[in-house]
């Protein structure tokens, strides 16, 4: 397993970025956590619908998304808001989707991020098609796609890996293996020793990285993106991580996992290890931490305000995004819906 920073914050490999950039990464991770905790709170207040927390997975998301360039494609699932906004997706739109309107699914034209996929596993194929299309069109754009360990049991995961291998699609598959698929532990999801090992069967490299080590994640993803950009094909990255909270705001993890397990993973917190490192390097102070949290809170609050201003579509507008041009049959139904 690739590790550059130990849980105690000691450097055991080559740091992939300079100290200033490392501090920026830390800032993004603090911001992600601030957002995530706010998400849980908003759900409790009934201001957003079901929320899928990602506390613990900040390094896996920030460390991968930061390696992309603006024209690259991102195909997320539902647990990657941090990756999405790192790639330009407006935070208020992420929140708007959570509030329950498709208006959140439409980022600005320059932001190449698909709306997050809810059916597990199926979206990875789209990343393969996107990456292949870019190659056909002579660009070096790549596509990155995110999914959990549970998703690797779905048939579409295998079809996506297989197509990507055959067509040498510039696609980076990022499995955020957070240990659980709702209540099913990884060990009952697959008999394979690692998920990264599955890459072999599809003719691509599989890389196991410490997903709570943002340096390791960044190094592995940079290499995979460079490989994809150079036309050398896809890579599967397994970022070994853990979700500290429930699967979603509707479930109770106490039913399936122990406090000991949780405590063990707390020790490996991605934020804490980078903090320790930065502190040792003289780049972290409690004042800075407080400032990051204050700024982060304000930024999230602004996004929430904007999200709450986004109006849902009307009965009639429900029809307007079904087709480029509405057929007569739908025009009739539209009129009926508007009358009510």
């Amino acid at each position, binding site marked *: 397993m690739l590790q550059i920073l130990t849980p105690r914050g000691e450097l055991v490999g080559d740091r992939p970025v300079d100290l200033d950039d490392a501090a920026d990464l830390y800032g993004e991770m603090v911001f992600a956590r601030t957002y995530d905790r706010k998400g849980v709170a908003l759900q409790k207040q009934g201001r957003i619908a079901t929320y899928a927390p990602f506390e613990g997975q900040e390094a896996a998301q920030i460390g991968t998304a930061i390696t992309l360039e603006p024209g690259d*494609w991102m*195909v997320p699932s539902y647990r990657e808001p941090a990756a999405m906004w790192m790639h330009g997706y407006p935070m208020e739109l992420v929140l708007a989707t959570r509030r329950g309107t*498709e*208006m959140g*699914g*439409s*980022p600005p*034209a320059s932001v190449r991020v*698909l*709306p997050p*996929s809810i*059916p597990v596993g*199926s*979206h*990875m*194929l*789209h*990343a*393969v*098609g*996107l*990456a*292949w*299309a*870019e190659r*056909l*069109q002579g660009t070096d754009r790549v*596509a990155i796609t995110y999914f959990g360990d549970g998703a690797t049991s779905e*048939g*579409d995961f295998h*079809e*996506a890996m*297989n*197509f990507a291998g*055959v067509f040498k699609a510039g696609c980076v598959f990022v499995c955020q293996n957070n240990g659980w698929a709702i209540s099913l532990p990884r060990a009952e999801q697959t008999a394979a020793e690692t998920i990264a090992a599955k890459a072999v069967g599809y003719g691509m490299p599989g890389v196991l990285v410490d997903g709570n080590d943002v340096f390791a994640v960044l190094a592995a993803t940079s290499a995979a993106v460079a490989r994809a950009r150079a036309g050398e094909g896809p890579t599967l990255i397994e970022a070994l991580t853990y979700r500290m909270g429930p699967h979603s705001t509707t479930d109770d993890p106490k039913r399936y996992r122990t406090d000991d397990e949780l405590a063990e993973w707390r020790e490996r917190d991605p934020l804490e290890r980078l903090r320790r490192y930065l502190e040792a390097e003289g780049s972290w102070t409690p004042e800075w931490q407080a400032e990051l949290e204050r700024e982060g809170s304000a930024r999230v609050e602004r996004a929430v305000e904007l999200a709450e201003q986004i109006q849902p*579509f009307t009965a009639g507008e429900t029809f307007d*995004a*079904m*087709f*480029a*041009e509405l*057929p*007569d*049959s*739908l025009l009739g139904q539209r009129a009926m819906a508007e009358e009510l």
Partner: protein
Amino acid sequence: MATLTIAQALNQALDAALTDLDDVLVMGEDIGRTGGVFRITDGLRDRHGPQRVVDTPLAESGIVGVGLGLALAGIRPVMELQFMGFSYPAFDQIISHVSRMRHRSRHRFTAPLVIRMPYGGGIGAAEHHSESTEALYAHIPGLKVVVPSRPGDAAGLLRAAIEDPDPVIFLEPIRLYRSVKEELPDLASVPLGSAAVERHGTDITLIAWGAMMKETREAAEKLAASGISAEVVDVRSLAPLDITTIAASVSKTGRAVVIHEAPRTAGLGAEIIAQLQEHCAYDLEAPVKRVTGWDTVVPLKMSEQHYTPSLERILAATTEVLES
């Protein structure tokens, strides 16, 4: 002017689309080197190269899901699934993603793609090779579903489907691939969403599509021979349904029979009859009848004739409607 079969017309339409439109890519299982199970893509790989006529791995969900990705990035994929009975592994991609991409992104991401699939029985094929479950697709919001029954429409609808900015399910009647010939003046596009009144009459309207047009045409001939003037409507577009054309015909004749090969329950016959109730109930002089396949698995070759609506069943239903 060339006289072409449906299979030849489709091949020419694909060839023309690959020639005229740089962004078209034809993909599917065995469609390159062999030209597909029914040879619809015959010769295209040689003419347009393996980059544009692509043999894919054997994985329907993969084909459609990757095709959607291609479409999202500006390529127009025309996918072939070998038989309708093998489209079900791709059903999830079609319903969960292809059909709703535009809606869930409020037009920001769209899926201009075509999924072609041979459908229907009558050739004594193996198990899973004779399905006509078009209602499954016509039921899904966000999809267009078309079925040609003659070469001109096959070419014209395919061209329109390829140029359409939304996803189109393109059903090809296996039984008619090589049995209907027609002169094609040119490969003009035929608008999606339009039914065709293919024969004019005054006593009764026969409504059908795809492979069942064969028996329906024969029925109209037989009826004509006994002095009954049947109007024949080829529905052609199952979604959206051109109820205006269908209802106008039924209003005129006052009587109708809907004929489809698909299972009876929740088939499109039920939908068409419901819409006739909404549009022209007061013009009806008799209840509308359906002649359909049964709610059974399509039997294999030796018993298949029990399943597919026959000329006799159509004539019997027509007589009942005319007499009531």
